[in-house]
């Protein structure tokens, strides 16, 4: 009975982890990049919009988390709980860490491009590369989720 309960709990954690961890990471990443945007706006007299837009980039991680949660969402049984837990928690952790580091990349891009606006496009490259790794985790979480039994 206890084993059954534990497995069910793990399964539910797995289902909700991607959105929870992704949202936490996005909040931290957007805070870091947003603070840099505010700092840059203190120094420049125009082009505020692109700084604010860039600082919202890490929020994509919470969207990936939501999609993974919907894909994983099903009745939890002892048979599928392990798979739900593994895919959910690991993809959630990937979104969490990616969002934080993407926030740092965005902050650097903002700080660098405030005095050299011509590098703005190129300065986005590190943040885009981090996004790419998160997309790998996202896509393969969807692929792997296809192999988890429905009940």
């Amino acid at each position, binding site marked *: 009975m206890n084993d059954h309960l534990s497995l069910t709990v793990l399964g539910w954690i797995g289902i909700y982890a991607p959105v929870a961890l992704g949202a936490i990471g996005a909040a931290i990443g957007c805070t870091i990049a947003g*603070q*840099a945007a*505010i*700092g*840059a706006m*203190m*120094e420049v007299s125009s082009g505020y919009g692109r700084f604010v837009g860039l600082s919202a980039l890490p929020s994509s991680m919470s969207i990936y988390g939501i999609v993974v949660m919907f894909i994983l969402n099903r009745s939890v049984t002892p048979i599928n709980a392990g798979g739900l837990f593994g895919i959910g928690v690991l993809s959630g952790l990937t979104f969490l860490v990616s969002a934080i580091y993407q926030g740092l990349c965005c902050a650097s891009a*903002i700080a660098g491009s405030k005095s050299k606006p011509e590098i703005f496009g190129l300065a986005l490259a590190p943040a885009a590369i981090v996004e790419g790794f998160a997309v790998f985790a996202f896509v393969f979480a969807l692929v792997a989720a296809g192999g988890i039994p429905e009940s």
Partner: protein
Amino acid sequence: MSPRYTTLMASLPPLGGLFEAREPAISRLKLQSRLSLLHPHDRQRLNGAIRILSQGLLGDASQAGESSGQPGRGDALLLEEAERFFREVDHPLLRQLVRHRLDLRTIVAALRRRHRGEAEAPRGQAWGSGPLVATIERHWSEPSLGLAGLFPWIGEAVLLLETNDLIGLERLLFSLIWRELDRLAQGHNFDFEAVVIYLARWSLVERWSNYDATAAAQRFRQLVSAGLGRFTDTLAVCPAR
């Protein structure tokens, strides 16, 4: 690396190269206003380091002592300040930065004393700081003070001193500090360490860009004093009508 000062660092302009700027990219007033974003505890730690780092490398402290009629008193005050700093501040990067600056100052002080004709290391007075003092005292008569392995630039500094090229010497020392700051800056973008390194760099740029202006103002004051002195003497010997 904790991105604690993202706003502050993003609000500071890039400083560019050390010898390129004619003036710092941000004024002292504006910089002080931006530093109000620092946490009070960090501000306190930073102030302790700035009191030491803002001292010149070519003997401001000793000049301060000489102007008060006590040669060497300025050095002693600086060393007291450094001792207090090392007692109170435990931040690794700040300590490393101050240690490096004091080491440079100690080496330059020894080289200048030797260049002035002092045949032996000074005894009974505070003239340097840190573990280098004992080595320098043992190897006083050697050209590189027994430190050529650790500090290969000493030979160049000796040459610049012998040719009385003090600007060249200051340039060399500034370059060494700049390189050390480059090394320490690795991995620090938006944390307290990044703020400290930015300020240290700003201080160098500001000092270098003011170098000629300061020298010119000093020379101007000397000329004015000399001119007024002659004028006063002339009036003094002029018979009253």
